[in-house]
């Protein structure tokens, strides 16, 4: 019996070999990672903070080179790092986000207080739908679950800032203010998380006393 050829698609492009991966971490990032590794018994445990470093270094999102770099730096497989990164919604894997990520809570309390109406306003103002980015690369809008600030519903999160309760007017003002900000808040958020991780140990020591 001959082998029946099912498809010519057989065989996929191969993943990059370690020597083909460009390591783009800045010196500062490398130093931070080294310090972080001291916090944990093994490199695997440092995956999450290391992904934050990568998200900062690669401009607010994780392109495939970033995944590969994290994998190499932590001696894990690419697939494992990709799996972890795609599990968490705060890592943006594969495609860039805008400089500012607007996360609109649409869970119960916010929903009742008009979150969708608010979202519609933002969407039509910016001309984008959920998950999309404005052509100038400024804003991305995303729908998120309860932000744990129901008393201030409806709530927005942009970087590490909560805004609520907000209405169309306050949102317009927020957007205007953000437009004048040049540094991307997504990168700033990543950096803040990395710094917090770096100091976590010391904080723990303090609170332990």
């Amino acid at each position: 019996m001959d082998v029946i050829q099912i498809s010519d698609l057989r065989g996929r492009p191969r993943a990059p070999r370690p020597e083909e991966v460009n390591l783009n971490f800045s010196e500062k990032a490398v130093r931070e990672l080294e310090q972080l590794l001291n916090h944990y018994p093994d490199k695997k445990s440092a995956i999450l903070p290391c992904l934050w470093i990568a998200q900062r270094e690669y401009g607010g999102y994780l392109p495939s080179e970033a995944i590969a770099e994290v994998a190499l730096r932590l001696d894990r497989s690419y697939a494992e790092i990709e799996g972890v990164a795609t599990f968490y919604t705060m890592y943006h894997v594969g495609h860039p986000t805008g400089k500012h990520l607007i996360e609109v809570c649409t869970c119960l309390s916010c929903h009742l207080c008009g979150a969708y109406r608010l979202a519609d306003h933002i969407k039509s103002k910016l001309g984008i739908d959920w998950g999309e980015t404005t052509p100038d690369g400024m804003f991305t809008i995303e729908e998120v679950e309860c932000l744990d600030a129901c008393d201030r519903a409806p709530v927005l999160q942009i970087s590490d800032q909560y805004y609520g309760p907000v209405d169309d007017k306050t949102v317009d003002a927020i957007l205007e203010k953000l437009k004048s900000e040049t540094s991307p808040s997504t990168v700033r958020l990543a950096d803040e998380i990395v710094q917090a991780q770096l100091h976590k140990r010391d904080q723990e020591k303090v609170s332990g006393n």
Partner: protein
Amino acid sequence: MAAAANEPQSVILTINDIEIEVPRGELIVESVKRIGLEIPIFCYHSRMKPVGMCRMCLVDVGFKQPDGSVRMMPKPQAGCTLPADNNMVVYTDTEKVRRDRKGVLEFLLINHPLDCPICDRGGECPLQNNTIFYGPSTTRYVEIKRHLPKAFPLSKYVTLDLERCIQCGRCVRFTEEISGDSQLAFRFRGAMMQPSTFELTDFESRFSGNVIEICPVGALTSAEYRFRARPWDLQTKPSICLECSNGCNTWFDYRVASLVRINGRTNEAVNEEWTCDKGKFGQNYLNSPDRLTEVFVRDGDKLIESNWATAFQQVSVAFQSAGSKCAALVGGKASNEDIFMLKRLFTEAFGSNNLDHRWTRCLPKSDALYRVATSIADFENEPVIFVFGNNIAEEQPILFLRIRKAWFRNDAKVIVACPEACEADTFAHTSLRYRPGTEAVLLGAIHRAATGAGGVDIAEASSITGVGEEAIRRAADAMKSGFALAASRSLLDLRNGEHVVGALSNLTIACNSSEKYNLFATSANEEGARQIEFMPSAEGKNTREILEACASGEMKALWLLECDPLSLSHDNELVTKALETVEFLVVQNHIKSECVQFASVLLPACAFSEKDGTYTNLERRVQRIKPIIAAKGSAKPAWKSFGELLLRMKGDPPPFHAHEVMQLIAASHQKFQSAIYENLEGEGVVIPANQSTEPQAVDVEYTAMEVPSNTP
């Protein structure tokens, strides 16, 4: 024992009102098997850590109270993650459990497509089976199912159908825990969670075929087997893989007398249940148009189809007139029976002792250097393992899995010395990446570091081999109080192979580990040929001498059984010259090879699936194969043709069945006495090693050797 006295090693629990005693910590899913019950499962696999991902194995659990009553837990428990304990009361078949199982299956089926009629797994699918036995007969879910890519080619062997996946994680855990390449991981989460490689790139693994077998649904299927048969159309028989020297046990699935697929067969002593991709997907040659199925004899510059009688006639004339100037060489796929009968033919009928099965560059005389002392399964419990030489995952994939298991399960220290990056590096205690050609120097340095004497200076060795001094010391430190060696005979292909192997032997002696010295065979029945002593005695010629004598015209006739010298030998110039020059060349093989063009007589042999016989794997385990499909054309088992030739030339009654040949082997080689066919059912039989005297240290030149670089 004393320390464990207050912590009894076994516990007593009740399962379905039957009281049983099981080892402490045994999982309930295993304990129930002791009373002949089974709990339905998907994600649990006895060779991997339990994760409790699918909830199929729910059981009702309670505890006996001091007052004699039983207090049941309010919720059912996952039997695959629950360790047995004293006073535990387990019910596997209550109304509640049945209802819960139905619920779990209904959920699992929410997103599972109903394409069983065109699914490869249909008919042997655990999801199908569990649904029939435990599932609901209809679904309440009427919404749209999740849609994902179907029939995605993950590699040239594995096709992934994401819609069918029930997210059990078996495939992901296999690559993490067993094969160690971590090629698969779950991407995304919740209902969208999908097992995949990094960005769906090629699934590059030596063991990828196993995930097809362990996937409990048809999500991972074999690209080769897809749509070629339904399981109930297949016939299946046990077989052995001959692609390397491990001797993995396989199921040979065939249909209309041709191979359709190979699956792993459980043999705890050899391959557990795994196969490598070479063995699982590399057997298509059986159906190849290049199979040799008829007898051919030379007529001028053509080979014309003929019959056995004519061929025998020509062969006996040619070999008899050659007198002792004839020789035989065998390759790795000849069975014990073939090899033994060929040896008999040559020694008894032709009066020649020019026999050999070794193809390496160096052919050390000392039998002790070829020792194999540790069995595959024993490696699991070795605390220190020294893997030396070529990439072990490539040469002995299944042994590699055991060594990895020794590290994964038992924290073995594995020292890996290999000239190139290899899979074993990923779990190595110390990796010694030496420059090719500097094997002996590296071993000399480890010797010095471990014993403080002998060998070579460490600093000097470090600069020659390119391995750091510290790494050498670290390795020596781990090894000095004993280690098990895993090295292969391909080391003898090095120009200073004899010294390298000698250095290994000296090192094991110096570290009191000479009873753990192993130099493994590389081809399927190489060890068998060695045990049957298919080698020249004192006055005979070895492979190299035979080829040289053929090339010079001194050797008149040559018999090649199941081998292609052009691919086996490192000196193709010599081989070509020898094959051209020798007057009479018999090529006997199951497949056409390059050397066919030089043949005077071409004899078809049966492939492993077509004959009865035994093979001896690298740990001297003799395993039986039985004929599964009919011989092709006029092919016959090689041993049979030798018997017939012996009958013609000497009037010896020929053996009619392979087991008679084994009796003959046992009569002339004591150690095969335990390997008669009645004993070979099940795991096969390990025959004893040669009674060699205490291994002696040998003189070794600890020097490096220039290696011509292959890079153009």
